[in-house]
């Protein structure tokens, strides 16, 4: 393939990866703390898409963006309070089923409210501005996504490393029960995790959908699965890991499609997962934790 095409693909891959990374972080953090695959995360991301559609229809985009982020955060925390908190003491499996239940509910709800037909995603003028560098052409968002991702991640890492809350969060994910004993308010920490996760998902969705221009009730599913794989690949519970995973998946996927293996672009992601589980279950950057006997 020609150099230009190659660059174009890289661009696509990186921006896709950026969006993935933002979602993957949500999975990674929640898993780190609750040991729960938050299946609903993908659908929170999808819902954020719909929020945008509706807020833009009544506000200018400058106002809509904060509204969307807020709405998504509320949704995320609500889900946590309603569906996960009551099951804290319950067996792992029930919580996981609950998570699936929520995702099932959100999808069906979206189908019911907004119909299965795709809704056009509002174009945010500055983001959509066409940029041409020689042969390569893409809208601003394509360039913006990876940059924004990196910035947000650095902010997050700062939060985790340098602030008291961050320390608390890391403590909880290291040892749930002990940190409870240490007087950390587990529930508020968990909520905070969901706040951060959802907020990032919201930003991710804005970037992702601006690039793809339409939302359907199921447009969360595949990205969701892939992002979880990204989180595992990077080492579940580790933020930088999730980011690296996100970019890796995004790029590899794009290039598989580019090389004409679009059939297997999804399959590959999961093949990757199984391989990781086989050879390095803790992922690239995660360290393993043994449960006490």
């Amino acid at each position: 393939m020609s150099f230009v095409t190659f660059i174009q693909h890289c661009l696509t891959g990186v921006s896709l990866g950026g969006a993935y990374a933002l979602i993957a972080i949500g999975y990674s953090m929640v898993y780190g703390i609750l040991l729960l695959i938050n299946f609903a995360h993908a659908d929170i991301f999808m819902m954020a898409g719909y929020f945008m559609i509706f807020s833009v229809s009544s506000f200018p985009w400058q106002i809509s963006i904060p509204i969307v982020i807020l709405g998504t955060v509320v949704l995320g925390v609500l889900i946590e309070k309603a569906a996960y908190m009551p099951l804290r003491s319950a067996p792992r499996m029930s919580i996981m089923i609950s998570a699936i239940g929520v995702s099932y509910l959100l999808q069906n709800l979206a189908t019911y409210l907004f119909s299965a037909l795709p809704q056009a995603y509002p174009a945010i003028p500055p983001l959509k501005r066409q940029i041409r560098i020689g042969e390569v052409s893409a809208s601003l968002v394509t360039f913006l996504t990876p940059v924004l991702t990196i910035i947000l991640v650095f902010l997050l890492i700062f939060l985790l490393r340098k602030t008291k809350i961050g320390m608390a969060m890391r403590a909880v994910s290291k040892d749930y029960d002990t940190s409870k004993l240490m007087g950390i308010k587990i529930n508020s920490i968990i909520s905070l995790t969901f706040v951060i996760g959802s907020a990032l998902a919201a930003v991710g969705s804005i970037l992702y959908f601006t690039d793809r221009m339409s939302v359907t009730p199921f447009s969360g599913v595949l990205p969701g699965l892939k992002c979880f794989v990204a989180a595992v690949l990077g080492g579940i519970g580790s933020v930088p890991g999730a980011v690296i995973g996100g970019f890796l998946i995004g790029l590899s996927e794009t290039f598989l499609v580019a090389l004409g293996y679009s059939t297997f672009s999804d399959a590959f992601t999961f093949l990757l997962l199984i391989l990781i589980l086989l050879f390095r279950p803790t992922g690239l950057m995660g360290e393993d934790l043994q449960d006490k006997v």
Partner: protein
Amino acid sequence: MNQTVWKKRYSFYLSLLVLLVALGLLFWLEVNKSNYGMAVSVIQKSLVFSVVAVSMNLLNGFTGMFSLGQAGFMAIGAYTTAILTIPLSRVDGVYYMKGVAPWLKGVKTTLSVLPEPLLIVFALLIGGMIAGIFAFFIGIPVLRLKSDYLAIATLGFSEIVRAVISSPQLDRVTNGSYGLKNIPGFGVTQAGGVLPVGAGSLLIPFFFALTTIAFIVLVINSSYGRAFKAIREDEVAAEAMGINLLKHKQLAFVISSVITAMAGGMLAMYMRSIEARAFSVTLTYDILLIVVIGGLGSVSGSVLGAFVVTFAKDWFLRFFDSPLVIGGFQVPFLRMGFRMVVFSILLMIVVLFYRRGLMGSSEFSWKGIFRWIRRKKEGVETTKGEMIDYPDPPPAKPAPLIPDPPGAPQEGGRDER
């Protein structure tokens, strides 16, 4: 002691009676299915789903492993069955785009010597076998890990299966994107036979379901079944009891997958024409819904769940989806998609407030029913049904006449965090 024996024989006859009634009903439905087409097709679907649900329960409910690969394994079974059973005369019509791979054609020609019923059974078995092999190899890496990795990996696997089946590279085998049709249905398909076309369209799936489910029940009640439950209860302790975790998880996973695949084959026969898209994650979720509503760890629960859910979803609750006006009053909410919303909410209710589902982890048994009724009369609270029949205590000590149901699991319990 004698009373237990008496009760046993008693419930045996009762079950026999019920079975006969069921058979009679099915037969009656079948004879005039022209008027009850809906009922027939819904019952067929329920039968198929009950098999899948039970085999999923074997993993999630009895062994405490969380697998979400059902759709994938069903796809494998469905496609194998379809490819092998499509009548030779119709094959070229089905593979109208790319034509069928010569080797496959060869295989089918050699197989075509078998009479159709045999061919179908054979196809189902092959489908199961292939699925089993896949399950075995996925199990090796994945079963060592925490249960949720299993969940995501199996989910991934079923996505892979779907992608591979619909890939153009396999056009000449799975007919890629074009789907397969002309799959023989449950009923007798060759006209001119002794039986009318379509005869047995209920009884045949009924017996398929009966045998497969019976097999799983036997496994569960065997010593291996106990081992599975032990693993579910506490892996470390189970291992300390000398139970080889990997081996037994592997075993449960393979058995479950094989049965699931066979059910997939049955689904293909039910749908008569299949395409990869039908085997998406949603299918798995629908089955999970059945299992959870029926009750994790209860075979009879899964079967009950399959029927209740399928009947409600495909028949009785249909009106949820169409706007409905009663006496000039437009009933609110009733609109496309409302049905599924109701079901997902129901799922959440069950998961959050009523984790035991319809049957909890208890099984249906006449003894249970009678006690239930009796207790009802006496107004004593009790659980519906009870555990699988009790081990006979040694003759030395007199057994407690009617021991308390050890079934019901309390909150938490299952696998520890």
